């Protein structure tokens, strides 16, 4: 079961009804039960790994806290980090390491293939591994105390709204909430449902719809011209945004319905006027994690090298971010590209500021729009390496198509599909513009009139029913 499964339509209301029917003290225990039910429904064996990581996450911070010397604390933390990272490294990178070793041995004329282990990567492992690490490091840094209740730690990692795709939460934020009375809060409840509704809209109406188009292009790049490939590349960031942010909205909304506040994960990233601003708005929980636990310690260590130290810290942080996203050369290049973009911005920052001030560009709308577009294009280009296509050969083919193949019109599956694409994306950007520039206004779902609000919700539900893509394969027409 995931948020987009049909079963979730029954699971979630049932959980909420039981949750609020239970006495306060039982509520967090019930969410723990529901979270494991949710996770086990994907594949029971996944839960075994989660339980293993939970036990380590529970025990080691207690040991760290009890350790008498700083040296011993550090030693326990290192063991903790290694143990927590082992499953992630094994499940995510075993295949790549295996293939690389086989190729290396082949190069030395040694044929010793390692056995292939057929498995699927446990869903959410990248997320709960990072959450577990942050908890241990925070205890080590004495920012929070070690939790004595095993159930609370278990709930922190398995919490069903966040277990699959984040946001990557912090123990310091979640533990006190789990332990609170979790009373019914009308405003939180309604706002949570609003967020969920918008998340579903983004996922079904926008992400899945663009996904249909992009799948046609990226799965058969060789058959499409440069114009179509360029359109797909430009649409890809919106697809990823609608998908990931949509998922995050559902997660944050679901948590809020239960009275739990989860951190914001996206903040209208396409209004960013630079890459550094972009990364403050995109996948915020991951970037905050990387900043706190990798970039900051590194830049502190390299502080004597001044700008060179900052650049090195940026490059290392984003290469790690790339590797976190996936075990492939394309993701390493993706991370390197982000590092380069941010390093260039850091190096030229002073000059840029002076230039903007001299020509008074800061208030010019055209300059801001161009900056947003430039940032978008940079990100869209980097995303060719960031999962849009499967491997480096396909990446090269996409780039070759964009710059060398100018024949033929842009591919369109049918006029109807194109209209759905335009409709969905337009609605998304209208909502984002409203939120970015007119957040105080009380339109539609925020109207003070109850009927206007309810009709607005109903219209969104109708749009999802009419324009959503619930099973990508339902509506694909594969041209060739």
């Amino acid at each position, binding site marked *: 079961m995931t948020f987009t499964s049909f079963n979730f339509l029954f699971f979630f209301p049932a959980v909420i009804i039981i949750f609020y029917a239970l006495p306060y003290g039982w509520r967090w225990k019930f969410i723990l039960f529901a979270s494991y039910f949710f996770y086990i429904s994907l594949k029971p064996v996944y839960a075994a790994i989660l339980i293993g990581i939970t036990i380590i996450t529970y025990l080691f911070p207690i040991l760290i806290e009890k350790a008498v010397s700083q040296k011993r604390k550090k030693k326990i933390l290192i063991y903790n980090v290694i143990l927590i990272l082992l499953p992630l490294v094994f499940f995510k990178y075993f295949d790549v390491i295996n293939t690389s070793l086989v190729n290396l041995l082949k190069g030395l004329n040694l044929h010793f293939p390692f056995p292939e282990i057929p498995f699927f990567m446990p869903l959410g492992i990248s997320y709960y591994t990072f959450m577990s690490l942050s908890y241990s490091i925070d205890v080590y840094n004495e920012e929070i105390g070690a939790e004595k209740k095993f159930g609370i730690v278990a709930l922190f990692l398995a919490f069903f709204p966040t277990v699959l795709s984040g946001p990557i939460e912090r123990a310091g934020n979640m533990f006190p909430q789990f332990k609170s009375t979790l009373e019914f809060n009308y405003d939180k409840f309604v706002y949570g449902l609003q967020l969920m509704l918008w998340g579903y809209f983004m996922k079904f109406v926008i992400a899945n719809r663009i996904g249909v188009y992009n*799948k046609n292009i990226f799965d058969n790049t060789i058959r499409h011209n440069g114009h179509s490939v360029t359109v797909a590349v430009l649409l890809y960031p919106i697809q990823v945004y609608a998908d990931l942010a949509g998922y995050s909205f559902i997660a944050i909304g679901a948590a809020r319905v239960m009275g739990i506040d989860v951190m914001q994960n996206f903040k209208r990233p396409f209004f960013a006027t630079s890459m550094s601003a972009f990364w403050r708005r995109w996948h915020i929980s991951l970037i905050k994690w990387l900043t706190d636990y990798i970039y900051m310690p590194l830049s502190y260590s390299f502080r004597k090298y001044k700008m060179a130290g900052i650049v090195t810290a940026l490059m290392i942080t984003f290469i790690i971010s790339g590797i976190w996203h996936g075990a492939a050369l394309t993701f390493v290049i993706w991370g390197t590209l982000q590092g380069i973009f941010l390093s260039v911005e850091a190096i030229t920052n002073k000059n840029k500021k002076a230039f903007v001030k001299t020509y008074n560009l800061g208030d010019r709308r055209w300059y801001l729009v161009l900056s947003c577009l430039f940032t978008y294009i940079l990100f869209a280009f980097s995303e060719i390496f960031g999962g849009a296509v499967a491997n480096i050969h396909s990446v090269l083919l996409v780039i070759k198509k964009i710059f060398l193949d100018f024949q033929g019109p842009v591919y369109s599956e049918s006029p109807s599909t194109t209209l759905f694409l335009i409709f969905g994306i337009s609605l998304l950007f209208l909502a984002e513009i409203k939120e970015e520039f007119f957040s105080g206004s009380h339109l539609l779902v925020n109207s003070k009139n109850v009927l206007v609000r*309810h009709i607005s919700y109903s219209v969104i539900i109708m749009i999802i029913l*009419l324009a959503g893509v619930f099973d990508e394969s339902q509506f694909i027409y594969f041209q060739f």
Partner: protein
Amino acid sequence: MNRSSFIFNFKLVLKQYLEKIKRNRFYYFLAKAVLLVSIVVLMDAALGDVMHYYYFKQKSGWIYETNYAVEKSTEPLLIFGSSTATHDCEPKIFESQLNIPAYNVGKDGHLIYYEYAVLKAVLKRYHPKIIILVFDDDELSQNQVFSSFVATLLPYYETHPEIRVVMDSKDENLKYKLLSKTYPYNSLIFTILMGTTEANKKRQVIVDGYVPLFKKWKEKIRDGKLHTNHPLDSGKIATYKLFVQECINSGINLFVIAAPIFMSPNYSSNSVIAGQIIAKEYGVKFLDFSKDTSILNHQEFFADMAHLNNVGASFLSLKVADSIKSYSSLLTEPSSVLITR
């Protein structure tokens, strides 16, 4: 108590009751939830009815063709298949060559599940004399792009039990999803609009279900080794067997044809091989044009790698009609006679 005092009392009681609800935030939420659900149900029913009305009012285009296949076709020769059927087979040629009315009930991107569901709907009304099933290169494969496509038939779920059975076998939750009256028309609003305004007529020519393509393929023949040959899908194989069995049981002369594909002959589609073996198993004629050099040697016959243009379609249709004619002595007999062992 007179009428006005009754109304006054009722208003007072209602006001007090509403205020009581408003004070308890949980009940206040429940009351609003009931209001929201009511609006959604009403809106869904109204929109569903409007969509239903315009869906079945179409007189041309994509939806009309689906509707014709399911509810209106009467021709003794029907052509089933996906885009290879709609673009490669010209019913007029079959009509002139075999002297029987023909119609192309194929649908772009819709493979065996859809074809089987439509066959069930047709058989409920009448038994055609001949059915040509145009086999796509990926007809029985696990290719995710061509997954099921039975969703196209959602508007018929309620009124066609024979289609319902096929659809339920693909999605066990369908009966719950179809509690919504709007859901069957998912992704169809613009198609319905275009059909209603007849804008589709300007865009595409459709003659008896056949959609001619007029462009010519410019790229050189593709090396078959480079083509992805997807593994087979057991569900699709089972459905293909059901399709063949239904035709045999209904005494229909079934011809399965593998459509030409502009690719070097060193490529053998898993689907086509499986289709051929199963056809042989059931004693059904399987005509393989996928490597026919009289077509592959004429690049000008192709509109793209997988579809023929109008010239190629006429050529192929003549060839298929000739092949069927060669079995003409057998056509009056039940299809089980057409065993080609």
